[in-house]
Each structure stands twice: as C-alpha cells, then as structure tokens.
C-alpha cells in the first residue's frame, strides 16, 4: 500500500493538504464510525481503512476542531513508567531519569495498562504503521530521544518530525536559540539558561524582532502564516493622528513602510545577532504549510541546521501533524466529517444507527476517541464526570475536591479519569460488562492511567487506536 503519496510534502514545500477536493464523500452506511479527530481517532480510522482497504467504509467524525492545537507534534511512547509510591514521591519523581528504551520499561507497568493489555507487538505494529504513513524520525532507534521544551526542560519522546531532528537535547552538541520579541511563549534567553545549566554543552540565545508588525496574541499562527506566504504581517492597530500632539511620534508608532517579505529580513536579523552555531532552534512557528521551504531557506542562509521548539497552544506543529494525518486518511479513503454525534439507536447491546448532524445512518461498529477531560471526551458538571456521547460509565469520586490535588504538578485523580475497558477495548459499564458489543475506545478516553505523567499519551493513542480500528474493520 502506498500511504505516503500525499503525506510527504510536495516538492514545492507546500503541504498540499486540507484541499476540499480531496475529501472523500461519506458513505451512506459506514461500516466503521470513529468519533473524535485527535491522534487516536485519526489513527483508528487509518488502521480500520488499511486493514481491509476494499471492504470497509470508514468515516471519521471530528467533534472538536482544536484537538491538535494542544499537541506538540512529537510521538511520546513512554517516558516515566508509573509514579513512585514513596512518601517522598515529589522529590523522587522529579529527579527520576526518563526511560531510555520504552519497550524495556513496559513490564514495569501495571497489567491493565493499555501497553500490557495489548502487548508490545501491537505497539510495534502501530508504530510501524505510523512510520509508514507519516514522515517522522526516530524509528531507527529503540531509544527515546530527548527534546527541549519551551520552558527549558527536556522531554523524552520516541518519534519526532524532521523539523525537530537537529534539536535533540540528547545530541551532545552546543545549540543556539532564537526568540522573537513578539512571541513571549518562548523566552530564548531563559530557555537557554535553563537548558545550559542542565545539559553538558553550551546553549546560547538571541532574541530578534520578527519582521513586520504583530499585534495578535498568541502570535504563533500569525508568524507561521507570514512565513508561509513570505509576507511580513501588518498587525491591526488604530491609525494614530499625529497632528493632535506636538511632539514627534515615537519611532515604534511611525506608519509602516511597504509590507515586505518575511523570510529574508528574518534571517538577516538573526545572522547579525547570532554567534556561529552548528544548530539553531526557533519557536515552532516557521510555517504551517510551507515549513519545509522555510526551514531550507533559513538553514542555507545561516549555514546551520535549523530546528523548532514547540510552543502553544495553539501549536503549529500540532496542526502540521494533523495535516499529515488527514493526508494519510484521504489516501486511505477515509471520509472525514465535522460535527456532533447527536443521537444513536442501540438494540440488543449493539449500536445500530447514529445521527450525525442531520444524517441518520447505520453502523457496523464505532470507535470512541473523543479524548479525556482535557476535552471534549469527558464532561465534568455538578452531577459528576460523564462521557457525553454514549454515556459510558466513568468511575470517579463523588467529592469534587478529590478530583484534584491542591497543587498543579501533583498526582491528580482526574488524570486517570476515563472509561474502563476489556481486552478488546470495549468500555465497561458499572457492573463490568461491555456497554455495547460493537463500541471500542481509544486514546485518552481509556482511563486508569495518567498519560501525561507517563509521557505516554501518543503511544497509547496509537496502540489503542490501531487495535480498535483493526478490530472494528469487518
């Protein structure tokens, strides 16, 4: 099968995705309906479609448009297996080194963890499909890579896109960072200080003004679009009337010169400030679609390898990942629609029909991949925590104050909220029986574990999405 045709950026450097003409018309009777357009949902739909390319009609219902705005674009498989249960757990947890090889650490997880439940072979299969469909790096190493974060920490990850490859913190080589005055999400001097203190090589920083005028906040998407189109942003401010005041208008308020290009002025500003570095990191706003071209341009101008550090939300790298996934979905013949699942009919423990934004149709099987409490898969209201689409059972304490701990970086109960599943990923009701025979869950909606603390959310999304998708395919 050829899943790469549209997933790989075209020679022009433009991600030719999101073109409506490429979308697949939904079938009247999708055999498989995947609800939820995050990584798990996309991957479930992809897996279902690839399992039996000819036989299955697969539809992906995107219920929230912003799922990837919070995704940093890496694929984290396992960084920290389990929390230490010592009394002094905070200190112990904080300084525990991330695991070097995720597959070796799986055995340390509890038996009902998705990795243990589904097994490492399924995880390998899922990663292999991801590697085949998406153009990511890291697949040639069983080891985690360490990537820098925009607050000066490092994070273990298993797969990273090409635009992060040069920036691995686990590459023992100095790096320079470039910040933009208009994008305070990445304070380059601060991040360089923090990384430099913690890594065995020098990290330097400069901060430059992005060409043009930027008044939007957060600035990331505006800067990315400016680089995509190579046109400096013009901002959005009221026009001053300088006649009213006698003094000279401050220089920052003088009217714009002709709106010019963005890329070349940017590299000129960086070049004049930056010391010689072999690799240079930017906030990940270097284009949302033409990022390949933009990076090539900057690399050749700076004579350095260029990488990006995710910032956000909104996360431009998340949107890039989404575009690549949607290209793969289009290639696989998956129909992608947006809207809400408004209702469903079930009979004899099976979901037979669903209502989708005015369309009413039969389904063979359904994958629930709407995400966790971070949205929109779980809803917390005065009555408690609910799964709003199929009203699956969600175990949680009655006392609202027991959902969270008093401090942000703690072991919160809500981190584990979700549905309980059986070995076939079917959500279970309060008595431990499957809610519906043909309903499976994937991704963060599968409860029991804090995937953020484990740094495992993406691997779990892939292995549960992959399995749920394949099992749902007739």
């Amino acid at each position, binding site marked *: 099968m050829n899943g790469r045709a549209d997933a790989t950026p075209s020679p022009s450097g433009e991600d030719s995705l999101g073109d409506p003409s490429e979308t697949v018309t939904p079938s009247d009777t999708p055999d498989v309906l995947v609800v939820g357009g995050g990584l798990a949902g996309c991957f479930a739909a992809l897996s279902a479609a690839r399992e039996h390319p000819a036989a299955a009609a697969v539809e992906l219902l995107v219920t929230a448009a912003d799922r990837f705005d919070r995704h940093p674009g890496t694929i984290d498989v396992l960084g920290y297996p389990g929390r230490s249960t010592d009394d002094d757990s905070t200190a112990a947890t904080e300084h525990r080194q991330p695991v070097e090889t995720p597959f070796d650490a799986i055995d340390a997880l509890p038996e009902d963890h998705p990795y243990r439940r589904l097994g490492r072979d399924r995880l390998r299969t899922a990663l292999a499909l991801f590697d085949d469909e998406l153009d990511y790096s890291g697949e040639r190493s069983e080891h985690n890579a360490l990537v820098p974060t925009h607050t000066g920490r490092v994070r273990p990850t298993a797969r990273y896109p090409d635009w992060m490859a*040069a920036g*691995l913190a686990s590459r023992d080589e100095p790096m320079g960072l470039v910040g933009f005055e208009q994008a305070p999400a990445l304070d380059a001097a*601060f991040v360089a200080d923090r990384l430099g203190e913690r890594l065995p090589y020098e990290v330097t920083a400069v901060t430059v003004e992005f060409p043009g005028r930027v008044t939007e906040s957060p600035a990331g998407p505006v800067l990315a679009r400016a680089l995509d189109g190579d046109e400096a942003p013009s901002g959005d401010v009221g026009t001053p009337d300088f006649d009213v005041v006698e003094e000279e208008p401050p220089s920052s308020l003088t009217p714009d010169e002709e709106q010019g290009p963005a890329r070349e002025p940017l590299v000129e500003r960086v070049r004049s400030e930056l010391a010689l570095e072999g690799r240079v990191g930017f906030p990940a706003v270097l284009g949302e679609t033409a990022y390949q071209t933009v990076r*090539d341009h900057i690399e050749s101008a700076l004579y350095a390898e260029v990488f990006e550090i995710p910032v956000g939300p909104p996360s431009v790298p998340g949107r890039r990942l989404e575009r690549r996934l949607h290209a793969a979905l289009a290639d696989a013949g998956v129909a992608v629609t947006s809207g809400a699942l408004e209702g469903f009919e079930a009979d004899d423990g099976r979901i037979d029909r669903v209502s989708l934004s005015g369309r009413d149709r039969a389904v063979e099987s359904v994958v629930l991949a709407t995400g966790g409490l*971070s949205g929109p898969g779980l809803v917390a209201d005065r009555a408690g925590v609910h799964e709003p689409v199929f009203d699956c059972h969600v175990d949680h304490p009655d006392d609202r104050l027991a959902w*969270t701990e008093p*401090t942000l970086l703690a072991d919160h109960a809500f981190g584990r909220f979700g549905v309980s599943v059986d070995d076939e990923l079917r959500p279970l009701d309060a008595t431990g029986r499957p809610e519906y025979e043909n309903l499976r869950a994937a991704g963060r909606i599968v409860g029991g574990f804090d995937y953020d*603390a484990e740094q495992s959310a993406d691997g779990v999304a892939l292995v549960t999405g992959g399995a749920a998708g394949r099992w749902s395919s007739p």
Partner: protein
Amino acid sequence: MGYTPHVLVVGGGPLGTGLARDFAIRGLEVTLVDPGPLAAPRTGRMGGLLASGAQFAREDPDYAQRCLAENRTLFEIAGHCVEDTGGLVVGDNLDGLQTACEDCSIAAQHLSAEAATEREPGLDPAVDGALAVPDAAIDPFLLTVAAARDAREYGADIRPRTEVTDIVVENGAVETVVVEQTPFPVDADGRDATGDADGDATDDADGDDTGGEPPDDGADGADPGAGGESGEDGDEPVRSDGGKSVPGTVGGGTDPTEDLGGSLEPTVDRLDVDYVVNAAGDNAPAVAGLADCSVPVSQGQETVTVAAGRPVETAVTRPAAPGEAPDTAVPVGQHTLLATEHRSGSDAAGVPSGPDTGHIPSPLAVDNVADSLSGLVAGTGRTQRALRLPRAEFDPGRGRDFAVLDHDRQDCWGLLTVLGGTVTTHRWVAERVCDRVCGEFGIQRACQTDELQLPGGEDVPDLAQAVGTFGLAESVYEHSKRRLGSQTSAVLHTDGENPVVCSCQSVTRSEVAAALDDETNADADLGGVRVRTSATTGRSQGGRCGHQVATQLHPAYDGEVVENACTALLDERWQGQRPVAGPQQTEMARTYRLHAGVMNRGHDHEMGHTDIAGYDDGSHDPADRPTCCPRVGWEP
C-alpha cells in the same frame, strides 16, 4: 522637629492600605505589613459592589447615606478603579425601598419587569421589576494597590509578604513588633504556610476571658497614653521624593539582589512602633493574640464565584436579611463577581476550612452561589474560580458597620483592632480610625483622603486619539487603559516591541514590568503582578500564560526563582478552580496536560555527557542530517 509617632498597620486589603494612606498623608510614620501580596482575598468584601446605599436604606438609613457619600468620593478620587455600571435592586417591596431611598436622597427609579429587562437583558426573566439606583462596580485590587502606592509616595513603608510573628507588650503598652519577610516565593509549601496561618487564626479567637466586653466603636474615652506631641504642624501633605511617580519609567529593572537564590530564609525585623492598627480581617484575632489580647468574633462566610465575561452589565443586587450582605452580581473588568453570604451555623455549605481548602469554598458552597443567584440573573456565565471569604465580625454582631476594639482594655495600650466595614465605606472607616489614633498622640490634622486623587485616578486627556494605541491591538489598548487610568501612556509607551503576555486579559509586557517595578510589590511576587494587572485571571487561569508572565522575572532573577514564582502563581490559581464544576475542570485538565505533559515541568533532569549518551541523538538517521552546513569559510 517634633516627635512623629510610628504606626504599624497590619493588613494589606482596602482598609489596611486606606489606613496607611491616611496616616501617611497626615504626616505620621507608617509601616504596613501583609503576609501575602497586597489585596490578598482575606480582607474586606471583594464582591466588587460600590454600593449606593439603596440596599440598606430601609433598615439602616445612616449607613445608606454614608455609602452614597463614599460612592461619590470614590468616583472622584479613584476613577480608574470604578465603573459606572449603574445598579438594579430586585426583591420584594420595591416601593417601600424606593421611599426609603428617597428619604436618604438616593435616586431610585422603579422599573417595570419589561423596563428592567430592557435595561439589563441578563436579568432572570422571572424578575418582577427592579429599582434602578446609582450603584457601581469597583475593582478592589486596583483600589488597594493604588492606595498602597499613594501611601508610599507620602512616605509609608509598604511591606508585602511580611508577617507579624510577635507583639511584645511591656508595662501595659506595645513595645516592639517582630515581623518576618519571606524574600522570594520559595515553593508551593511556602505559599501554603501563608494560607494555613489564616485557618489557624480563627481557632485562636475563642476561649478568652474578655469576650463579653462590648467592642468600642467610639473615638472618645481612650487613654491618651504615651502620646507624643504633634510633629510638623503644617496641614499640607508632603510627597516624599523616594517614591516613583510612575512605575516602569524610573529606576530601571528590579534590584538584581546579589544573593539571588541563595538566602531564602525569612528576614526578621524588630519594629519599635508606637501604635499598631490591626486591620487583618479574619486574621485579626490571631494578630491580637500575639499580644495576648483577644477579639471576640463571629465568623460570617461569604462565597464569591468569578464568572468569565459579563453575563450582566449592571450591578444587580438583592437585599438580604438584616445584618447580612446582599446577594450580588457585579461586572468588574472582564469578569463578573457573584457573591452570597452565609452566616456561621446557618448553612451546611459553610464548611470549615481544612488544611487543603484554606480560602477555597466547598463544592457545595460554590453550587449554592449559582442556586442563590438564579432568580436574580438569567445565567451566571462560566464559573472560573471561587473564593471563600471568611468574614470576621465582632460578637455581638454589628451588621455591616465597622467596629474598633481598643486593646487598652485588655492592658495593652497601643493596639487597636478594626473589623467590619465594606469596600464602599473603607475610606471613611480609615478616616475615623486615623482620627482616633491621632487623638491618642494629641495630633489634630484633618483627613484629606477624600480630596486627593489616587495614582491612576487623576483626570488626564484620553491619549488614544493622539498617539493611536501604542502599537497594540485596539482591544488590548482598551483593557490596558481601563486598568492603568492616568498612567496608561507612561506604561504602554515603549521603545521596542510590547507583546501581550496574557492573551485572555490583554496584559502586555510593559504592564507586567511596571507591576514588578512597583515598590509596593514584593520582589519577584507574581501574585502582586496578578492583582495589579489581572494577568493569569482569564479562562486558563494562568495555564497558558503563567510561564510567560514568570519569565519576565528573567534575567533579573535566576531560573530557580522564576520557576518557583511560576509554580506559586499557578498553584494559587489552581486552588481557586478546584471546587468549580463545569468547563473549568476541562481547563484544569488542559493546564495540567500542558505543564506536566508538554512542558514536562514535573521533571527536572541534570544530565552529563554519559547521561544523555543513552538516548537517541538522531545519528541513527544520517539521512536526516542536512548537508547544507559548509561552515568552513563562512564569514558572518
């Protein structure tokens, strides 16, 4: 030069800062201490209502008229803290209330249900008419900070993050007060310790032997004591040169203290003060207890929830039972504050504060706010956070009126506890207390706090036409201007870029810098930045912007201080969201995911060459290494 008495004010809320301002303007030597940043939500009523008095006209005409007078005064002196929203009073017997208002000279217009709904579409449809009255909204944070800054400009020593740890009494008079200042926000535990102090304080209030003594509300009859003679006798207040007239334009960055990250031990200071005014709110009994004095209090309990946006544009109130605060829904800036009161013992919702709850209410109490206000407003909006405001009042209760207790009756001359009052009347209360304390020293100087404008409140021409929006988006400029008042131009006028660091609240880097430069803020205290700028009070409660605000401390402070300050800021925000149901729980999950997951702030790794050697360095993928780096021969 004559003798100038040194007064210590304990408490940094509207009343405490108002006291410090009044004392300073009258020329006394003043020190103000507060264990948190200023305007921590433990003092005074923070529901945001600048009352016209209409709510109280029937049962307490004197108080109602005082409210009206203070309402007008605050419009004059603190225009940038006040928004003329107008007010609607709903409830029973509005005709009777209207008559009572007229007797108090409070303009009150009886609106039919249709007219009321037309005036305020956010009213509950079931509301059967309303009284339109000149209520307004007041931003208690801006007010408190402005008063503190003004006090400092008149020479007061403002010390946030400073706690009174002992009051030494000798021969029946206050001799020395020991205070401890915490240099930096050390970690979450340090922050918790502040909250615990309040929880403990209420326990110290009972079990005394003078509890039956009625509090003294009069200004007369106290011993003149060791009063000194009046110092300078001129009535003209003198602004000291030490203060900054405009933050952010003088003095450059924060002091690059040399032992940054080194000495995190509290600084202990012994103050030889002549008089102590205890305005520590619900913490007042504990403060008095340090001098072995007691304050007989009854605890009221107010729950305030903060809703996103403005489901109402008018201050909507419903008078409550006599002696209780009205139910209120008041739009303040980009939020709406919803408040109900619960007397101790009257409702199970007022659960006692455990070590984990501190100033946060129980979920039941939060839900109760929404229930209480249904029937008042159509929707309460999206609740972002909730505060539990323990409200200490003298026992027997004196309603909403203020009261003072002179501890001279407990063999401690030089200590006065003030409780009660509201944000509307705080200036008047401060005036009365200052009159009395000055009287102790034989000083007779007129109060001028009702004439002198607060910093930011001065009348200045609107600069928007003249200089545009300082390169900012229009909405950012408008929100900044509302907070900054007459200092808008000084703060927003920057040479370089001035990006927005808190998107929800439209707070720019220069506004944060001005707040950090404010001498009435403690070093590196982002809580102080929050009350000055409203940064991190939007939808994500700092989840998205907290780190951006925190890195404004860099490079003046090292990375460790920045991290701790960020954690303290976010933990404070976290607490207030915990009892709230609904979409805010989703926001909390997103904040956790961002900080624990994407940023990996839960782990801190120091790694040497051998440590990182065990991880993928990308070299397995030689094809991925670009070949565009012929660094030889390149010249910059």
